[in-house]
């Protein structure tokens, strides 16, 4: 991929800031890997960064102006991903790539407008914090899911979106940055996790991408929570909420239709092809596609 010099500098600064946040050491090997450039180009790049006084002369640490610049790029990237998630129909596998292209064109003013338009979001769709205009960012929290053993319960706070084939497996399972889960089984190769009435088996490579925190005081793992898609005719469900995978236009439309906590739903009309299915919600029959019903959390009610 041919990159002009400014783009490359911005990518490098973003990488430095991300490593700083992850408390990961920067090396030329890491740069080579993440930026996909040759060792000669790395040397040239480092020299340019140091000449511009964005990186300290004797280490890989960012200078004050370097950090400010890096946080601006990071803010642009994460805001733009949030924008893509909420306002467009692009599939999530290409958000990162699109944001990587667009972040360089966004000025400070554009970023400010974008943040305002989106209501100053604090986290991007993957759970990464979005730096504020004054460069504020919280300390990193949580640990990779693989660090925990069977029986542990916790909440997902971050899902790494690179590489995208691992990310796709996680998002297809409907796991998102607000999922509460329990580890059923963990061995040296795989980890079995339980959430919303289903069990998913992930190899370690996938589970590494998921960062989790322990549950707070008023937070519990609720075994009775399931997904609306598993509701059968004759059963009755109370809606608990919607997963954060249901976003933007779709989320507000469903809220308007009465898909809110406390609403009772039943299956009213089955479809020969299995999707969509008509649900009786607040006296109306509303047809939802299977993947929409998967994003709605319910608790079955005894008749």
């Amino acid at each position: 991929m041919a990159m002009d010099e400014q783009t490359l500098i911005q990518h490098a600064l973003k990488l430095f800031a991300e490593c700083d946040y992850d408390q990961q050491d920067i090396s030329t090997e890491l740069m080579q890997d993440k930026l996909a450039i040759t060792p000669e180009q790395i040397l040239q790049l480092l020299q340019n960064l140091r000449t511009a006084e964005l990186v300290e002369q004797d280490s890989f640490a960012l200078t004050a102006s370097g950090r400010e610049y890096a946080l601006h790029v990071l803010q642009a990237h994460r805001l733009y991903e949030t924008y893509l998630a909420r306002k467009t129909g692009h599939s999530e596998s290409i958000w990162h790539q699109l944001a990587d292209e667009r972040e360089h064109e966004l000025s400070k003013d554009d970023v400010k407008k974008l943040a305002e338009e989106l209501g100053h979001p604090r986290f991007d769709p993957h759970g990464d914090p979005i730096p504020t205009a004054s460069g504020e960012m919280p300390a990193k929290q949580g640990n990779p899911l693989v660090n925990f053993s069977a029986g542990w319960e916790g909440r997902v706070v971050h899902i790494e979106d690179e590489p995208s084939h691992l990310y796709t497996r996680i998002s297809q399972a409907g796991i998102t940055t607000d999922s509460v889960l329990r580890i059923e089984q963990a061995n040296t190769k795989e980890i079995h996790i339980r959430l919303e009435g289903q069990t998913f088996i992930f190899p370690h490579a996938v589970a590494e991408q998921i960062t989790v925190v322990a549950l707070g005081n008023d937070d519990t793992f609720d075994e009775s929570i399931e997904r609306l898609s598993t509701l059968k005719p004759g059963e009755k469900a109370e809606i608990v909420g919607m997963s954060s995978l249901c976003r933007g236009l779709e989320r507000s439309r469903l809220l308007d239709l009465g898909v809110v906590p406390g609403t009772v739903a039943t299956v009213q009309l089955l479809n020969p092809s299995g999707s969509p299915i008509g649900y009786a919600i607040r006296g109306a029959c509303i047809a939802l596609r299977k993947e929409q019903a998967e994003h709605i959390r319910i608790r079955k009610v005894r008749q």
Partner: protein
Amino acid sequence: MEPEQIIKRASELRWKLPQDFHDRWVEMVYADSARIASRNMVQQGKVHRLTWERRLDSLLTNRWTGMPIMVLMLASVLWITIIGANVPSGILATVLLDHGHPMLQHLAELAHLPWWLSGVLVDGLYLTVAWVVSVMLPPMAIFFPLFTLLEDFGYLPRVAFNLDHLFYRVGAHGKQALTMSMGWGCNAAGVVATRVIDSPRERLIAIITNNFALCNGRWPTQILLATVFLGALVPPALAGIVSAAAVLGVALLGVMLTFFSSWILSTTVLKGEASTFTLELPPFRPPNLFRTLYTSIIDRTLIVLWRAIVFAAPAGVVLWSICNIQISGMSLAQWLVNLLDGPGWLIGLNGVILVAYIVAIPANEIVIPTVLMLTVMTTGMSGVGEQGAGVMFETSENSALAMLLQAGGWTTLTATCLMLFSLCHNPCSTTIYTIWKETKSLKWTLVSTFMPIGFGIVICGTVAFIWRVVAG
């Protein structure tokens, strides 16, 4: 505490809120309002659905009965429209064309209008508008009320429900089934009907692909060509079946192209548009006949008809003019026909057809009359359409028609390609204007206009090429 400290503390706490705090908060607001509403609201009437409603629902959405009922309903609506429109169309044609036109010509003579003025006004403007009205009004006045009745009864949302999985695969909305069938009546009305789709991406797909639904301005062209050219290839006993199958084939090709182009659009130019799906299945209710008639006649039929007239009138003027403006001893129309004969040949058509399509952008109804008039003009045939250059006509004698067109160099290939081109060409100007009104976007209007022509050129070109290779 100092103000700075408060702000600092607030921004620290801001990061401590749960990630989905905002979503949860909005959800709680909705849940609270729902609770308040249900506490203070008394609901009258039935809560549970009646047994017959449940039975009917499962009959209409059943794996075995759903599809046959749908095909039957659609076929009967189209059949009633075509059969029912014959009589009023005939009456209108007699009044407006057979009597009105000569009468106006006579009046123009009495008023001593110059020949060119009476030509432009009576033979051009009046005749075209009268033609469009007599062909277009009756089918629309039958089709739209029938359609609205089915809609009001609650049947159409069930169709969308049954077919959604097909449309889902190409990235479209089940309700596109409805706007597509509306397009079989009139594309402009079909485009307006896309308002029922509340998702931006799916709505644009439905608008752009609506032209592949064969509208009532094009059904007659298809039926005529299939009868005259394709029906004539087989023994008379089979002629009816063959020509009906050919017309149905073209309509089904249109449905396939709708799916194909929807898929292309949703995976390329439209993939970034926001998308959502919801489909409300209202309870069945007896339709209100009076309101249905009023809304479908006023809102749909008359508005579309008015737009068509507004666009057809200038077309009539242009048509008459190009036939009567002479340049170096040849009419402008003749020049154009000669110019377009080459490109026309490549896609299995001819110059006359292309000129007719350019002039007839305002209304598909006048394509065949224009083709006939131009053919008489270019071949110099006598015995039919002797009313003069620039005066459209139609003949009810199929044999005379076949003779005339064969004299104009038409073959089975020409007829086949014209049937295909009639399906895949730009929407009429009424529809283009409606698309502009609905999308307010030059880009999508242009895409809707030129994408079908692209399809048409490729399909007709391929058919013509293979045909010529195979036939030697």
